[in-house]
């Protein structure tokens, strides 16, 4: 009975992730259509710092991995390992977010704001929405770590870790496409 309830929770959360994916599809479509409308201003190849973005990507990819390991350890009831892995995931995610915010502030300081061109608007909308999701995920993770420290690895705790890891893997998958379509293709074209 308990298992069945969990299955329903996971499926419901999965459906939420799929609707979120649809929202990202709209933002991706807008970006792809508007990518060349730079209004005489800068294009992707002039403003993207590729080594920086690669490090960002590796941060997020590694955090996705450590998040999966945390879930694995949670099933094995290894409390210390779970906390350590979740903290690692949190730090890597925070590093990713910090780098993204630095990138944004750097663009802003050079005058490449979201008001300058349709390309920059769609760029900030797409990457910014992903960043907002990351921020929400980090807050969630922080609350989860406190919850587990207080209550231990209960059935509910494991369920919460499972949902959080689904969300985090989903964000990494969206980032693969931001990395490829926005950055790699932006520089290559």
């Amino acid at each position: 009975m308990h298992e069945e309830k969990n299955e329903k929770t996971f499926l419901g959360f999965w459906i939420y992730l799929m609707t979120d994916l649809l929202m990202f599809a709209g933002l991706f479509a807008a970006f792809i259509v508007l990518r060349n409308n730079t209004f005489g201003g800068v294009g992707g190849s002039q403003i993207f710092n590729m080594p920086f973005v690669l490090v960002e990507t590796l941060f997020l990819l590694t955090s996705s991995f450590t998040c999966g390991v945390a879930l694995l350890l949670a099933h094995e009831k290894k409390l210390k390992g779970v906390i350590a892995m979740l903290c690692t995931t949190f730090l890597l995610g925070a590093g990713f977010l910090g780098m993204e915010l630095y990138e944004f502030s750097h663009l802003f300081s050079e005058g490449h704001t979201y008001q300058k061109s349709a390309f920059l608007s769609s760029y900030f909308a797409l990457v910014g929405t992903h960043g907002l999701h990351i921020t929400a995920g980090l807050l969630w993770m922080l609350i989860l770590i406190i919850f587990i420290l207080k209550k231990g690895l209960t059935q509910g705790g494991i369920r919460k870790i499972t949902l959080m890891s689904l969300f985090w893997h989903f964000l990494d998958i969206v980032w693969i496409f931001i990395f490829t379509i926005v950055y790699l293709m932006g520089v290559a074209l």
Partner: protein
Amino acid sequence: MTKTLKTYIAGFILSLILTFLAYILVLIHVNSYHEQIPHEILLPIILIIALIQLFVQLVFFLHLGQEPAPRWNVVFFISTFGAVVVVIVASIWIMNHLNYNMTPKQIMQYIQDQSSL
């Protein structure tokens, strides 16, 4: 495939390889003076690499399709993925045609802008 550390490590290493592969291909393309890889080939290749990485992470990280039937998440994922492809491909298609089928006045303006450059 069960949820073991091995699958996570395999997924992580495969994702790393695919990320670096796409990155290096673009690096070679940008840094070569003679354009060793043409656009028409490079762009589909890095898109395919991204799709392979999507598949790798779905299988190794999200364990999609490994629960007992009926696999509702797989059904939801495939239908959503179809909708995503339609949204993106149709947008590109429609907007390209909009650019192509401008009104005569716009086309004259366009030609003027182009010739003045």
